[in-house]
Protein backbone atom coordinates (compact mmCIF):
# COMPACT_ATOMS: atom_id res chain seq x y z
CA UNK A 1 0.00 0.00 0.00
CA UNK A 2 1.28 3.50 -0.79
CA UNK A 3 2.75 5.51 2.07
CA UNK A 4 0.32 8.37 1.41
CA UNK A 5 -2.64 6.06 1.87
CA UNK A 6 -1.21 4.58 5.08
CA UNK A 7 -0.60 8.05 6.51
CA UNK A 8 -4.07 9.23 5.45
CA UNK A 9 -5.76 6.27 7.12
CA UNK A 10 -3.65 6.71 10.22
CA UNK A 11 -4.57 10.39 10.45
CA UNK A 12 -8.32 9.92 10.01
CA UNK A 13 -8.45 7.02 12.45
CA UNK A 14 -8.91 9.54 15.27
CA UNK A 15 -12.11 10.92 13.74
CA UNK A 16 -15.57 9.71 14.67
CA UNK A 17 -18.39 8.37 12.52
CA UNK A 18 -19.84 9.39 10.09
CA UNK A 19 -16.88 11.63 9.25
CA UNK A 20 -14.36 8.80 9.26
CA UNK A 21 -16.39 6.67 6.82
CA UNK A 22 -16.95 9.61 4.49
CA UNK A 23 -13.24 10.46 4.38
CA UNK A 24 -12.36 6.81 3.89
CA UNK A 25 -14.83 6.66 1.04
CA UNK A 26 -12.99 9.62 -0.58
CA UNK A 27 -9.55 8.19 0.02
CA UNK A 28 -8.68 8.19 -3.69
CA UNK A 29 -9.41 11.93 -3.95
CA UNK A 30 -7.64 13.06 -0.79
CA UNK A 31 -4.85 10.64 0.18
CA UNK A 32 -2.10 12.13 -1.96
CA UNK A 33 -2.78 15.82 -1.58
CA UNK A 34 -4.49 16.37 1.77
CA UNK A 35 -2.75 18.69 4.23
CA UNK A 36 -5.42 19.50 6.83
CA UNK A 37 -8.87 18.52 8.06
CA UNK A 38 -10.65 21.32 9.88
CA UNK A 39 -13.54 20.73 12.27
CA UNK A 40 -15.40 23.69 13.74
CA UNK A 41 -18.42 23.48 16.03
CA UNK A 42 -21.61 23.45 13.94
CA UNK A 43 -19.71 24.52 10.82
CA UNK A 44 -19.01 22.51 7.68
CA UNK A 45 -16.03 20.17 7.80
CA UNK A 46 -13.34 21.37 5.42
CA UNK A 47 -10.50 19.42 3.88
CA UNK A 48 -7.50 21.45 2.82
CA UNK A 49 -5.45 19.96 0.01
CA UNK A 50 -2.21 21.32 -1.42
CA UNK A 51 -3.90 23.64 -3.87
CA UNK A 52 -7.60 23.66 -3.07
CA UNK A 53 -10.13 23.37 -0.25
CA UNK A 54 -13.03 20.94 -0.22
CA UNK A 55 -16.21 20.64 1.81
CA UNK A 56 -18.15 17.41 2.20
CA UNK A 57 -21.79 17.31 1.15
CA UNK A 58 -24.38 15.44 3.20
CA UNK A 59 -24.24 12.67 0.63
CA UNK A 60 -20.52 12.27 1.31
CA UNK A 61 -19.11 13.72 -1.89
CA UNK A 62 -16.41 16.40 -1.86
CA UNK A 63 -17.22 19.80 -3.32
CA UNK A 64 -15.35 23.07 -3.60
CA UNK A 65 -18.44 25.11 -2.72
CA UNK A 66 -19.84 25.65 0.73
CA UNK A 67 -23.61 25.58 1.25
CA UNK A 68 -26.10 24.77 4.02
CA UNK A 69 -26.26 21.10 3.15
CA UNK A 70 -22.71 20.25 4.13
CA UNK A 71 -21.49 17.70 6.63
CA UNK A 72 -21.00 19.57 9.92
CA UNK A 73 -19.17 18.77 13.12
CA UNK A 74 -21.30 19.26 16.23
CA UNK A 75 -19.96 19.87 19.74
CA UNK A 76 -20.19 16.21 20.69
CA UNK A 77 -18.19 15.20 17.60
CA UNK A 78 -15.45 17.69 18.46
CA UNK A 79 -15.37 16.44 22.06
CA UNK A 80 -15.17 12.82 20.94
CA UNK A 81 -12.38 13.64 18.47
CA UNK A 82 -10.41 15.40 21.20
CA UNK A 83 -10.83 12.39 23.51
CA UNK A 84 -9.69 10.04 20.75
CA UNK A 85 -6.63 12.09 19.81
CA UNK A 86 -5.68 12.13 23.48
CA UNK A 87 -6.04 8.31 23.64
CA UNK A 88 -8.99 8.85 26.02
CA UNK A 89 -6.50 10.29 28.52
CA UNK A 90 -6.91 14.07 28.33
CA UNK A 91 -5.02 14.55 31.62
CA UNK A 92 -1.88 12.97 30.12
CA UNK A 93 -1.85 15.50 27.25
CA UNK A 94 -2.55 18.54 29.43
CA UNK A 95 0.76 20.24 28.67
CA UNK A 96 0.30 19.80 24.94
CA UNK A 97 -3.32 20.95 25.08
CA UNK A 98 -2.33 24.12 26.92
CA UNK A 99 0.24 24.70 24.15
CA UNK A 100 -2.60 24.35 21.64
CA UNK A 101 -1.79 21.08 19.92
CA UNK A 102 -1.61 17.33 20.43
CA UNK A 103 0.83 15.09 18.53
CA UNK A 104 -0.67 11.87 17.19
CA UNK A 105 0.85 8.56 16.22
CA UNK A 106 2.45 8.97 12.80
CA UNK A 107 3.60 12.49 13.56
CA UNK A 108 0.26 14.10 12.66
CA UNK A 109 -0.78 17.05 14.80
CA UNK A 110 -4.13 18.25 15.98
CA UNK A 111 -4.24 21.98 16.59
CA UNK A 112 -6.89 22.90 19.15
CA UNK A 113 -8.56 26.17 19.99
CA UNK A 114 -11.38 27.16 22.29
CA UNK A 115 -11.69 29.20 25.46
CA UNK A 116 -8.48 29.66 27.43
CA UNK A 117 -8.29 28.80 31.12
CA UNK A 118 -5.68 31.09 32.61
CA UNK A 119 -3.60 30.42 35.66
CA UNK A 120 -1.06 33.01 36.85
CA UNK A 121 -1.28 34.70 33.47
CA UNK A 122 -0.47 31.60 31.40
CA UNK A 123 -2.81 29.29 29.54
CA UNK A 124 -3.19 26.20 31.73
CA UNK A 125 -6.02 24.54 29.80
CA UNK A 126 -8.45 25.00 26.94
CA UNK A 127 -12.15 24.48 27.57
CA UNK A 128 -15.14 24.58 25.21
CA UNK A 129 -12.98 23.45 22.32
CA UNK A 130 -14.43 25.04 19.20
CA UNK A 131 -12.01 24.02 16.44
CA UNK A 132 -9.74 21.11 15.72
CA UNK A 133 -7.26 21.32 12.87
CA UNK A 134 -5.85 17.93 12.01
CA UNK A 135 -2.58 18.47 10.15
CA UNK A 136 -1.45 15.47 8.17
CA UNK A 137 2.28 14.94 8.52
CA UNK A 138 4.18 14.17 5.38
CA UNK A 139 7.82 13.27 5.28
CA UNK A 140 9.72 14.12 2.11
CA UNK A 141 12.74 11.89 2.34
CA UNK A 142 15.56 13.21 0.21
CA UNK A 143 14.37 16.81 0.02
CA UNK A 144 17.70 17.95 1.48
CA UNK A 145 19.79 15.88 -0.98
CA UNK A 146 20.60 18.77 -3.33
CA UNK A 147 21.66 21.04 -0.48
CA UNK A 148 23.88 18.39 1.12
CA UNK A 149 25.58 17.67 -2.18
CA UNK A 150 26.54 21.30 -2.56
CA UNK A 151 27.33 21.84 1.14
CA UNK A 152 28.64 18.60 2.61
CA UNK A 153 30.22 20.21 5.69
CA UNK A 154 27.66 21.98 7.84
CA UNK A 155 29.83 22.49 10.88
CA UNK A 156 29.93 26.24 10.44
CA UNK A 157 26.20 26.34 11.31
CA UNK A 158 23.24 26.72 8.96
CA UNK A 159 20.19 28.94 9.33
CA UNK A 160 17.22 27.99 7.19
CA UNK A 161 14.89 30.90 6.56
CA UNK A 162 11.46 31.07 5.03
CA UNK A 163 7.88 32.21 5.42
CA UNK A 164 5.35 29.97 7.22
CA UNK A 165 4.50 26.88 5.16
CA UNK A 166 7.64 27.22 3.02
CA UNK A 167 8.82 23.73 4.00
CA UNK A 168 11.40 24.60 6.67
CA UNK A 169 10.40 21.83 9.06
CA UNK A 170 10.25 19.15 6.36
CA UNK A 171 13.66 20.26 5.10
CA UNK A 172 15.33 20.30 8.50
CA UNK A 173 13.84 16.89 9.40
CA UNK A 174 15.38 15.31 6.31
CA UNK A 175 18.64 17.11 7.02
CA UNK A 176 18.64 15.70 10.57
CA UNK A 177 17.95 12.18 9.30
CA UNK A 178 20.76 12.28 6.74
CA UNK A 179 23.33 13.98 8.97
CA UNK A 180 22.64 11.58 11.85
CA UNK A 181 24.45 8.82 9.97
CA UNK A 182 27.66 10.88 9.76
CA UNK A 183 27.58 13.04 12.90
CA UNK A 184 26.35 12.90 16.49
CA UNK A 185 23.14 14.91 16.27
CA UNK A 186 20.98 16.24 19.09
CA UNK A 187 17.55 17.07 17.73
CA UNK A 188 15.57 19.58 19.79
CA UNK A 189 11.89 18.99 19.18
CA UNK A 190 10.13 21.42 21.49
CA UNK A 191 6.75 21.25 19.80
CA UNK A 192 6.84 17.69 18.55
CA UNK A 193 7.02 18.69 14.89
CA UNK A 194 10.35 17.16 13.93
CA UNK A 195 10.51 13.71 15.48
CA UNK A 196 6.93 13.72 16.80
CA UNK A 197 7.67 11.33 19.66
CA UNK A 198 4.80 9.32 21.11
CA UNK A 199 5.77 7.31 24.18
CA UNK A 200 9.41 8.17 23.55
CA UNK A 201 9.43 6.69 20.05
CA UNK A 202 9.93 9.09 17.11
CA UNK A 203 7.04 8.78 14.71
CA UNK A 204 8.99 10.43 11.91
CA UNK A 205 12.19 9.01 10.49
CA UNK A 206 14.95 11.03 12.14
CA UNK A 207 17.66 8.42 11.78
CA UNK A 208 20.07 8.16 14.69
CA UNK A 209 19.35 11.54 16.29
CA UNK A 210 19.14 11.94 20.06
CA UNK A 211 15.75 13.59 20.48
CA UNK A 212 14.98 16.19 23.15
CA UNK A 213 11.22 16.16 23.13
CA UNK A 214 9.18 18.94 24.71
CA UNK A 215 12.16 20.76 26.29
CA UNK A 216 12.35 24.52 25.85
CA UNK A 217 15.02 24.94 23.17
CA UNK A 218 17.26 27.13 25.32
CA UNK A 219 17.31 24.50 28.08
CA UNK A 220 17.73 21.57 25.67
CA UNK A 221 20.67 23.25 23.90
CA UNK A 222 22.60 23.60 27.15
CA UNK A 223 21.70 20.10 28.32
CA UNK A 224 22.72 18.62 24.98
CA UNK A 225 26.08 20.41 25.03
CA UNK A 226 26.74 19.24 28.59
CA UNK A 227 25.52 15.68 28.39
CA UNK A 228 25.30 14.33 24.84
CA UNK A 229 28.51 15.74 23.28
CA UNK A 230 26.84 16.43 19.93
CA UNK A 231 28.67 17.47 16.77
CA UNK A 232 25.60 19.34 15.57
CA UNK A 233 22.45 20.54 17.33
CA UNK A 234 19.38 20.80 15.12
CA UNK A 235 16.28 22.74 16.11
CA UNK A 236 13.26 24.45 14.64
CA UNK A 237 12.23 28.10 14.83
CA UNK A 238 14.70 29.93 17.03
CA UNK A 239 14.41 33.58 17.89
CA UNK A 240 13.82 34.31 21.59
CA UNK A 241 16.46 36.07 23.68
CA UNK A 242 17.11 32.96 25.79
CA UNK A 243 17.59 30.87 22.67
CA UNK A 244 20.09 33.36 21.28
CA UNK A 245 22.03 33.22 24.55
CA UNK A 246 22.06 29.42 24.34
CA UNK A 247 23.22 29.68 20.71
CA UNK A 248 26.21 31.73 21.82
CA UNK A 249 27.01 29.12 24.44
CA UNK A 250 26.90 26.40 21.76
CA UNK A 251 29.29 28.40 19.60
CA UNK A 252 31.65 28.89 22.56
CA UNK A 253 31.61 25.12 23.14
CA UNK A 254 32.34 24.42 19.49
CA UNK A 255 29.02 22.77 18.76
CA UNK A 256 27.45 23.66 15.40
CA UNK A 257 23.80 24.54 15.11
CA UNK A 258 21.39 23.98 12.24
CA UNK A 259 18.18 25.86 12.84
CA UNK A 260 15.21 27.43 11.11
CA UNK A 261 13.83 30.92 11.52
CA UNK A 262 10.76 32.71 10.22
CA UNK A 263 10.99 35.29 7.43
CA UNK A 264 14.41 36.24 6.03
CA UNK A 265 16.38 35.61 9.21
CA UNK A 266 18.32 38.74 8.44
CA UNK A 267 17.09 40.74 11.35
CA UNK A 268 20.58 40.77 12.72
CA UNK A 269 20.02 39.42 16.19
CA UNK A 270 20.28 35.78 15.19
CA UNK A 271 23.27 36.39 12.96
CA UNK A 272 25.04 38.45 15.64
CA UNK A 273 25.44 35.25 17.66
CA UNK A 274 27.95 34.16 14.97
CA UNK A 275 26.53 30.66 15.24
CA UNK A 276 25.75 30.45 11.52
CA UNK A 277 27.96 30.68 8.46
CA UNK A 278 25.41 29.66 5.83
CA UNK A 279 21.92 30.92 5.16
CA UNK A 280 19.44 28.86 3.18
CA UNK A 281 16.30 30.55 1.88
CA UNK A 282 13.21 28.47 1.17
CA UNK A 283 10.25 29.55 -0.88
CA UNK A 284 7.25 27.36 -1.73
CA UNK A 285 9.03 24.23 -0.54
CA UNK A 286 12.13 24.80 -2.67
CA UNK A 287 15.54 26.32 -1.98
CA UNK A 288 15.47 29.80 -3.49
CA UNK A 289 18.97 30.90 -2.43
CA UNK A 290 22.01 29.84 -0.44
CA UNK A 291 24.21 32.60 0.92
CA UNK A 292 27.08 32.93 3.32
CA UNK A 293 26.65 35.26 6.26
CA UNK A 294 29.34 37.50 4.74
CA UNK A 295 27.33 37.84 1.50
CA UNK A 296 24.23 38.57 3.49
CA UNK A 297 25.92 41.28 5.60
CA UNK A 298 27.49 42.83 2.51
CA UNK A 299 24.08 42.96 0.83
Amino acid sequence: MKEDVIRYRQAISCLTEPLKSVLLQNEAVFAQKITEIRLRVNRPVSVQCTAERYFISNTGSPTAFCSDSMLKADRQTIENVVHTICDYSVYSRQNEISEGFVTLRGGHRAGICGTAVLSSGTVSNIRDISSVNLRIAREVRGCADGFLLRNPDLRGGVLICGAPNSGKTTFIRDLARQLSYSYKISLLDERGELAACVGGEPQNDVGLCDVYCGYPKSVAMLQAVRSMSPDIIICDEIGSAKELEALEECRRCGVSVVATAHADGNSGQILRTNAFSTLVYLDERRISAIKTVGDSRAA
Partner: protein
Amino acid sequence: MPLKIIGCLLIVSAAFSAGTLLSKRLYRRRDFLSSFKTFLQALKTELRYNGGDIFSLVGACARQTGFPIDVDGDKPFEVSWQEAVGGIPRYYSLCAKDLELLTECGSQLGKTDLEGQLSHLSLIEARLDSLIAEAGESIAKKSRLYKTMGFFVGASAAILLL
Protein backbone atom coordinates in the same frame (compact mmCIF):
# COMPACT_ATOMS: atom_id res chain seq x y z
CA MET B 1 -36.17 -44.32 62.94
CA PRO B 2 -32.38 -43.80 62.39
CA LEU B 3 -33.10 -43.01 58.72
CA LYS B 4 -35.65 -40.38 59.79
CA ILE B 5 -33.11 -38.80 62.12
CA ILE B 6 -30.49 -38.77 59.38
CA GLY B 7 -33.01 -37.18 56.97
CA CYS B 8 -33.92 -34.54 59.54
CA LEU B 9 -30.27 -33.75 60.15
CA LEU B 10 -29.77 -33.37 56.38
CA ILE B 11 -32.73 -31.00 56.13
CA VAL B 12 -31.46 -28.89 59.02
CA SER B 13 -27.94 -28.71 57.59
CA ALA B 14 -29.23 -27.88 54.07
CA ALA B 15 -31.40 -25.05 55.37
CA PHE B 16 -28.54 -23.77 57.53
CA SER B 17 -26.20 -23.87 54.52
CA ALA B 18 -28.71 -21.89 52.47
CA GLY B 19 -28.82 -19.27 55.23
CA THR B 20 -25.00 -19.18 55.38
CA LEU B 21 -24.82 -18.80 51.61
CA LEU B 22 -27.19 -15.83 51.70
CA SER B 23 -25.15 -14.33 54.50
CA LYS B 24 -21.90 -14.80 52.50
CA ARG B 25 -23.40 -12.86 49.60
CA LEU B 26 -23.58 -9.85 51.89
CA TYR B 27 -19.89 -10.21 52.74
CA ARG B 28 -18.94 -10.62 49.08
CA ARG B 29 -20.68 -7.37 48.17
CA ARG B 30 -18.92 -5.50 50.96
CA ASP B 31 -15.55 -6.98 50.01
CA PHE B 32 -16.10 -6.05 46.35
CA LEU B 33 -16.95 -2.46 47.29
CA SER B 34 -13.91 -2.29 49.55
CA SER B 35 -11.66 -3.52 46.74
CA PHE B 36 -13.25 -0.88 44.47
CA LYS B 37 -12.24 1.73 47.01
CA THR B 38 -8.67 0.43 47.10
CA PHE B 39 -8.69 0.49 43.28
CA LEU B 40 -9.84 4.13 43.26
CA GLN B 41 -7.10 5.12 45.70
CA ALA B 42 -4.47 3.34 43.61
CA LEU B 43 -5.82 5.00 40.46
CA LYS B 44 -5.61 8.44 42.09
CA THR B 45 -1.98 7.82 42.98
CA GLU B 46 -1.15 6.54 39.50
CA LEU B 47 -2.86 9.51 37.88
CA ARG B 48 -0.88 11.89 40.07
CA TYR B 49 2.54 10.32 39.66
CA ASN B 50 2.47 8.21 36.51
CA GLY B 51 0.33 10.05 33.98
CA GLY B 52 0.20 7.15 31.49
CA ASP B 53 -2.85 6.49 29.33
CA ILE B 54 -6.05 5.52 31.07
CA PHE B 55 -6.17 1.96 29.72
CA SER B 56 -2.77 1.05 31.13
CA LEU B 57 -3.41 2.86 34.43
CA VAL B 58 -6.73 1.10 34.99
CA GLY B 59 -5.20 -2.25 33.99
CA ALA B 60 -2.22 -1.78 36.32
CA CYS B 61 -4.39 -0.68 39.26
CA ALA B 62 -6.82 -3.57 38.73
CA ARG B 63 -3.94 -6.05 38.80
CA GLN B 64 -2.36 -4.37 41.82
CA THR B 65 -5.52 -4.35 43.90
CA GLY B 66 -7.16 -7.51 42.59
CA PHE B 67 -10.19 -5.52 41.44
CA PRO B 68 -12.00 -7.65 38.87
CA ILE B 69 -12.26 -5.26 35.92
CA ASP B 70 -10.62 -5.68 32.53
CA VAL B 71 -10.79 -2.89 29.94
CA ASP B 72 -10.19 -3.54 26.25
CA GLY B 73 -7.83 -1.00 24.66
CA ASP B 74 -9.29 -1.39 21.16
CA LYS B 75 -12.50 0.49 21.97
CA PRO B 76 -13.31 3.93 23.35
CA PHE B 77 -12.61 3.84 27.08
CA GLU B 78 -16.18 4.53 28.18
CA VAL B 79 -17.57 1.71 26.02
CA SER B 80 -14.84 -0.61 27.19
CA TRP B 81 -15.50 0.24 30.85
CA GLN B 82 -19.26 -0.27 30.46
CA GLU B 83 -18.66 -3.68 28.93
CA ALA B 84 -16.28 -4.55 31.75
CA VAL B 85 -18.89 -3.50 34.34
CA GLY B 86 -21.50 -5.60 32.51
CA GLY B 87 -19.10 -8.56 32.73
CA ILE B 88 -18.66 -8.43 36.52
CA PRO B 89 -19.86 -11.86 37.75
CA ARG B 90 -23.18 -12.07 39.63
CA TYR B 91 -21.16 -13.91 42.26
CA TYR B 92 -20.40 -10.51 43.84
CA SER B 93 -24.14 -9.88 44.43
CA LEU B 94 -23.94 -6.20 43.52
CA CYS B 95 -27.16 -4.19 43.65
CA ALA B 96 -28.34 -1.66 41.05
CA LYS B 97 -26.88 1.26 43.02
CA ASP B 98 -23.42 -0.33 43.02
CA LEU B 99 -23.48 -0.95 39.28
CA GLU B 100 -24.70 2.59 38.65
CA LEU B 101 -21.78 4.01 40.64
CA LEU B 102 -19.33 1.79 38.77
CA THR B 103 -20.69 2.93 35.40
CA GLU B 104 -20.62 6.57 36.47
CA CYS B 105 -17.00 6.19 37.56
CA GLY B 106 -15.95 5.11 34.05
CA SER B 107 -18.05 7.70 32.28
CA GLN B 108 -15.68 10.53 33.20
CA LEU B 109 -12.34 8.73 33.37
CA GLY B 110 -9.79 10.19 30.98
CA LYS B 111 -12.04 13.03 29.83
CA THR B 112 -10.71 15.91 31.89
CA ASP B 113 -7.46 17.35 33.18
CA LEU B 114 -5.71 15.91 36.23
CA GLU B 115 -7.56 18.09 38.74
CA GLY B 116 -10.88 17.10 37.18
CA GLN B 117 -9.96 13.42 37.31
CA LEU B 118 -8.95 13.57 40.97
CA SER B 119 -12.12 15.46 41.94
CA HIS B 120 -14.24 12.95 40.04
CA LEU B 121 -12.57 10.02 41.78
CA SER B 122 -12.93 11.72 45.19
CA LEU B 123 -16.63 12.20 44.55
CA ILE B 124 -17.04 8.56 43.56
CA GLU B 125 -15.05 7.53 46.63
CA ALA B 126 -17.31 9.58 48.92
CA ARG B 127 -20.40 7.94 47.45
CA LEU B 128 -18.71 4.57 47.66
CA ASP B 129 -18.07 5.10 51.36
CA SER B 130 -21.80 5.38 51.99
CA LEU B 131 -22.40 2.18 49.98
CA ILE B 132 -19.70 0.37 51.99
CA ALA B 133 -21.29 1.60 55.22
CA GLU B 134 -24.67 0.39 53.97
CA ALA B 135 -23.19 -3.00 53.07
CA GLY B 136 -21.65 -3.18 56.56
CA GLU B 137 -25.04 -2.43 58.15
CA SER B 138 -26.68 -5.12 56.03
CA ILE B 139 -24.12 -7.61 57.30
CA ALA B 140 -24.72 -6.58 60.91
CA LYS B 141 -28.49 -6.78 60.49
CA LYS B 142 -28.99 -9.68 58.15
CA SER B 143 -26.00 -12.02 58.29
CA ARG B 144 -26.86 -13.67 61.62
CA LEU B 145 -30.55 -13.45 60.76
CA TYR B 146 -30.08 -15.48 57.55
CA LYS B 147 -28.06 -18.16 59.36
CA THR B 148 -30.51 -18.38 62.29
CA MET B 149 -33.50 -18.37 59.94
CA GLY B 150 -31.88 -21.14 57.90
CA PHE B 151 -31.32 -23.22 60.98
CA PHE B 152 -34.81 -22.69 62.40
CA VAL B 153 -36.58 -23.27 59.08
CA GLY B 154 -34.62 -26.54 58.76
CA ALA B 155 -35.36 -27.47 62.37
CA SER B 156 -39.10 -26.71 61.97
CA ALA B 157 -39.27 -28.86 58.85
CA ALA B 158 -37.44 -31.65 60.68
CA ILE B 159 -39.83 -31.47 63.66
CA LEU B 160 -42.81 -31.64 61.31
CA LEU B 161 -41.30 -34.71 59.66
CA LEU B 162 -40.69 -36.38 62.98
